[in-house]
């Protein structure tokens, strides 16, 4: 599919609606490739997995787990290049392992053979390294249990801390009692200079020092005793030792993570796949889509097909979408019928369903049977290349060239109103010639046309829009809105045989929409 086709069959819209939860799922979606001819069995397996997720009540549980899964690819990469991981990274790996284990348990509860292919590998041996105390909590700390040395350092630190606190408290109380002053939380006291005796007294106190002074006051602060200084120095040394020991521990764990990095990475891929499959399952359910039957023969049959983007647009306007049946039995199918009869929508719907199926998605219809195409191709009016400066006809020709180039392969070619913008004589000639060319090829072509005598060919299937429901009464109705046409339009397609004439509804529609009566009358004179 070209960019242009993706847009024109609204596949971009649909693909955007697929919303994996994890970054791995997003990656899986981004890297997704269409299934092509020859991969029918793989596609079947993909559909089985989606169906299994739709049917299993464990889907909700899996989604809950997915919501907690973080991207650890960078962390794994860092471990692989021998970096020492920090606590937050170790926390994330630990959580990943917990979630993998949880998901593995849920997956085992689904008794579907295709889901069994999504095999996660829990790593209890690695998990143990991240939970040495066997606390089974999803938090992380460099636990005392990592080493005897760490445990000892920490216990000694606590002891010293306690000693210092007691010593300080004792000195504080002594000073407060001795000098009858109150020291604040920062062990400071402000004394007015007018209290000369007090100032003299405090100046002599060995355990106090002046920490601030102005013309009014002096601030005194408790001084550490040599004993406290000793303890604080020791505490400092222990802290360094503790840091070193923690580093060593983190290093050891990082090495273990490196050893298991391939399995960790494989797990992220499988999680991505599961996430992407569940996104497809969710979307299938949301859009009432079904699993298409994939066949090897060149064919498309669609019952009750819907174009999801248009359906959404109409729904927002509270208008009902009319699903379309399409049963193609010849290589070239010509859709004829009234303006505003949904011919272009049918083309887009067909392309969209073929594209969704090839990307392993369920399709929005009641029933679908189709083959895998190597190419899906559409040429429709509102083409991007027109924006690039080409005229309507110019863009069509560029597209047509591309289509014809691929017509020897198994392609789905969708053409809307070929040469509709040029003079009718040449336009007809081109259309007829293209149809003659394509009907001999091994691809499916669906085209819409207003030209007479294109569809009346034994080798071509002609489908016609049923058209306006009350053509005769239309004279009586006067509505000044183009939207009203929808009320009277029957969008369904019926097969017609060898009809050379195309139904002429354009004037009726113009009339319903409220074009001046005089013009309509005048136009009738020319028919």
């Amino acid at each position, binding site marked *: 599919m070209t960019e242009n086709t993706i847009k024109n069959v609204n596949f971009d819209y649909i693909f955007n609606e697929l919303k994996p939860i994890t970054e791995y799922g997003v990656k899986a979606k981004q890297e997704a490739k269409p299934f092509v001819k020859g991969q029918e069995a793989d596609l079947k397996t993909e559909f089985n997995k989606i169906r299994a997720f739709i049917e299993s009540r464990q889907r909700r549980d899996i989604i809950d787990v997915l919501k907690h899964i973080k991207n650890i690819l960078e962390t794994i990469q860092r471990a692989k290049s021998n970096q020492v991981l920090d606590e937050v990274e170790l926390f994330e790996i630990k959580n990943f392992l917990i979630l993998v284990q949880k998901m593995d348990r849920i997956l085992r509860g689904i008794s579907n053979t295709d889901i069994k292919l999504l095999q996660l590998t829990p790593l209890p041996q690695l998990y143990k390294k991240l939970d040495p105390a066997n606390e089974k909590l999803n938090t*992380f700390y460099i636990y005392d249990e990592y080493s005897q040395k760490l445990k000892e350092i920490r216990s000694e630190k606590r002891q010293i801390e306690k000693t210092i606190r007691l010593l300080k408290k004792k000195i504080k109380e002594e000073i407060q009692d001795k000098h009858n002053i109150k020291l604040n939380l920062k062990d400071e006291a402000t004394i007015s200079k007018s209290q000369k005796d007090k100032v003299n007294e405090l100046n002599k106190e060995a355990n106090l020092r002046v920490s601030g002074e102005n013309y009014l006051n002096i601030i005194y602060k408790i001084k550490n005793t040599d004993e406290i200084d000793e303890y604080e120095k020791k505490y400092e040394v222990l802290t360094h030792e503790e840091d070193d020991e923690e580093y060593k521990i983190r290093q050891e764990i990082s090495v273990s993570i490196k050893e298991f990095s391939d399995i960790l990475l494989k797990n992220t891929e499988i999680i991505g796949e599961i996430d992407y499959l569940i996104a497809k399952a969710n979307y299938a359910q949301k859009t009432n889509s079904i699993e298409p039957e994939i066949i090897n023969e060149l064919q498309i049959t669609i019952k009750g097909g819907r174009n999801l983007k248009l359906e959404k647009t109409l729904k927002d306007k509270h208008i009902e979408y009319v699903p379309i049946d399409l049963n193609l039995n010849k290589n070239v199918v010509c859709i004829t019928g009234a303006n505003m009869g949904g011919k272009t929508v049918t083309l887009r719907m067909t392309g969209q369903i073929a594209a969704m199926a090839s990307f392993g998605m369920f399709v929005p219809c009641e029933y679908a049977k189709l083959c895998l195409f190597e190419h899906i191709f559409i040429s429709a009016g509102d083409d991007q290349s027109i924006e690039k400066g080409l005229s309507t006809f110019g863009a069509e020709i560029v597209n047509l060239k591309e289509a014809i180039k691929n017509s020897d392969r198994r392609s789905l070619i969708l053409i809307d109103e070929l040469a509709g913008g040029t003079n009718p004589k040449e336009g007809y000639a081109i259309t007829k010639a293209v149809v003659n060319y394509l009907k001999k090829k091994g691809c499916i072509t669906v085209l819409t046309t207003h030209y007479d005598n294109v569809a009346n060919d034994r080798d071509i299937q002609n489908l016609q829009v049923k058209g306006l429901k009350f053509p005769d009464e239309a004279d009586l109705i006067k509505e000044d809105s183009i939207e009203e046409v929808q009320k009277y339009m029957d969008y369904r397609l019926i097969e017609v045989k060898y009809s050379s004439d195309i139904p002429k509804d354009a004037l009726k529609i113009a009339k319903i929409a409220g074009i001046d009566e005089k013009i309509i009358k005048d136009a009738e004179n020319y028919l």
Partner: protein
Amino acid sequence: MVNIETNFRGASMRLIESIRKNNYETVSIIGLAKNAGKTMTLNYLMEEAANLNIKTGITSTGRDGENTDLVTQTQKPSISVIEGMYVATAKKTLMLSNAKTEILETTGISTAMGEVIIVRVRQKGNIQIAGPVTAKDMKYVAGRLKYYGAEVVFIDGAIDRKAVSSPVITDACVIATGAVLSRDMKKVLEKTAHAVECYSLKGTDEHVKNIVRKTNKTCIISENGKVIVPDIATSITGGKKISELIDEKTSHVFVKGAVTSTMLKELWENKHLRGIKLIIEDGTKIFTDINVWNEMRRKGLKVEALNTINVLAVTLNPVSPEGYFFDSNVLKENMKKVLPGIKIVDVAWGGDED
């Protein structure tokens, strides 16, 4: 003085006790200037909480564009944390901390300083705190800190001209002020009283709130409920334009974002303003000259806030880093006089009186 003390019995309760008594779960601390003692207040409150075995959580409002420079330039002061405390801070600051912490959650909220991580302190130490930037993230983080066990969450707050200020999203707010505001104690008193007055503005009527919240832009509201949204880039530069649109039918004027002296003067040009209520987002958005503000208020300017702030206490730091300091008792007594009914705590000297 004795009378005042007895009249405000509640005010004689220790600050941490009144937080608990009122069931305030989130408390923001705002400094009126750098070195006004915000960090001291935080440390003080956390120490007080620890003494009463109250489990606390702490985070701070980060600011857009904060980067690693901030760490080295020590713009954000270190907070001392002790075992059992809960902290939410950006990864970079956490990695620089000498406190030992247990990682509880990686929030997925990213800041210029890295992802916000929630931890429990296992060994005391100092930590710089840089929390989430947006109000929504802040609410989430505060909620998580409570979830893990914090009974009170302190937010090292910031006021913001444009975004949501922290006092608005917390149950209560403590204002830190101090000698650093001016060498002249009178000025310190005046500035502090002004801030408290602004923060304590009363909330506007529900129906006006609804109109304003729906519009969410600077607008002029008429008696009949008609709303005009002036075409201006910011309220700061749009004073004149707003003034032009005010007429005798106008009942309220809502100004989004900062309120400046120039803007107030421009608005005041319109004679109809005297009967109109000026609605501002919240008290932290007032950046006017005190004299201009006081004059307007004397002349009858009516101001109400969309979001109210609950000022719980004012903390004092009588010491300025420039070397000068006030007599703690004098500052405190004077502050009590200008702010009757508000709890005043000198965190640098005595803390709450015993």
